[in-house]
């Protein structure tokens, strides 16, 4: 099975999900590249199911108050702040 053709709508849908604005030119270029790259990724369909035991363990620590960044330091890279808080654009 091969990928269904990638069209401009697919690229625009994903760009919208990822909060990225694309020009028509970008969309055209990405559509062509994505077709080629996704066809290459399609080979993964032939990978067999693998029995694997995860080696993961939870790493816990005590929930204790300790020294952390000052509010000033945490805000120093923000474009704008107000009353010690980050300032962002309006929600709607």
């Amino acid at each position, binding site marked *: 099975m091969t990928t269904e053709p990638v069209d401009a709508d697919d690229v625009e849908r994903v760009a919208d999900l*990822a909060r*990225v604005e694309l020009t028509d030119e970008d969309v055209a270029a990405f559509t062509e590249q994505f077709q080629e*790259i996704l066809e290459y*990724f399609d080979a*993964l369909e032939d*990978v067999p199911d693998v029995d694997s035991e995860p080696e993961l363990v939870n790493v816990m*620590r005590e929930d204790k108050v300790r020294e952390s960044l000052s509010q000033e330091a945490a805000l120093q890279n923000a*474009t704008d702040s107000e009353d010690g808080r980050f300032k962002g*654009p309006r929600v709607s």
Partner: protein
Amino acid sequence: MSHNAFITEAEIEGADDGPLDGRSVAVKDNISTEGVRTTCGSAMLEDYVPPYDATVVSRLKEAGATIVGKTNMDEFGMGTTTETSAFGPTKNPVDEDRVPGGSSGGSAAAVANGEADLALGTDTGGSIRCPAAFTGTVGIKPTYGLVSRYGLVAYANSLEQIGPIAPNVGEAASLLSIIAGPDERDGTTREEGKDVEYADAVDGDVEGMTVGVPTELVEGSDEVVRERFEAGLDELREQGAEVVEVELPSVEYAVAAYYVIAMSEASSNLARFDGVRYGNSGGFDGDWNETFSEARSEGFGDEVLRRILLGTFALSEGYHDKYYKQAQEARAWVKQDFDRAFETADVLATPTMPVLPPKLGESLEDPLQMYLIDANTVPVNLANLPAISVPVGDSDDQPVGFQVIGPAFGEKAIIRAGSALE
């Protein structure tokens, strides 16, 4: 002459004494340095100044190192040539018409050119080993969990490690000892690297060592690279190592699996760049969706956008099982293949890169072709293993790197084998 190895030159003095007293170290620009801007090679973070040090930077300072600057890199580590940097490409000091490899190209160029004694890079799919191979230096990608990632700006956090680049195996091993070991601020670090003197393994003693060669990762290399690789194997044989063939059938799928996983993780990790807490701002005129989109489109370059979009696609409804889940299956398979190979071999060997360094400007037109030259390095990251790249002479006046891969936390074995090639 400047090769554009540094994005920001600095002079950060460490402690008055220590094993790195008097030594200069260049640090890749995705590793946080308190008070010194850390851009990740991106316009997004052009003015970002971290309020804290990465753990590895604290350890360099405690060891007495002088940090001489932040090195150029592919934007957020996404590239194999250091050409996707928003600050322009780095030239290869060995041949200025060629790329130094990537994504830690600035770190490798600084060491190759003598602008720093040592350097730190990061390796997500080969980003330390590739530039080491292309500049004739030594680079080590540690086992996942050996070195703290606290303060490293994440790209694909299940794959990446910080590691050393140096002019020779001994100095790379010594630098690894300084940065390795557990860190309470990174829950994925392990006890294994605590107080280990890796330079003790720089004895070249490969007598009786079994070196496995995965044919799948040699056949795809250019003839000029294979000649030097075979000469390296001969050197190991002459010193008493036994060379055997091993099979890694899963690696056929490694590049696809690697890119699906790396892009998926990138789409999630880079979601934080909305221009509010740090980074390029989209202003305050539109609603948040509009301004976040504006901030991101302005701040990210083409390769970063490509990976964010493809990663978002691979995780999106209807495609997750086909791409992301299958890539995780492939990753588990690659790990099993390596486990099996290490039942017969102590270490594995391959050419680090299947090609000689490309000319500047040659690689950006065709992204898939660029991804494919990572074939020999990405399996190591998928399997969380350590690997070293050591120079094995020149072909057509270009350096060739010899990669030695070890079992998990087998850094001493790869350092020992690497030192036998010097």
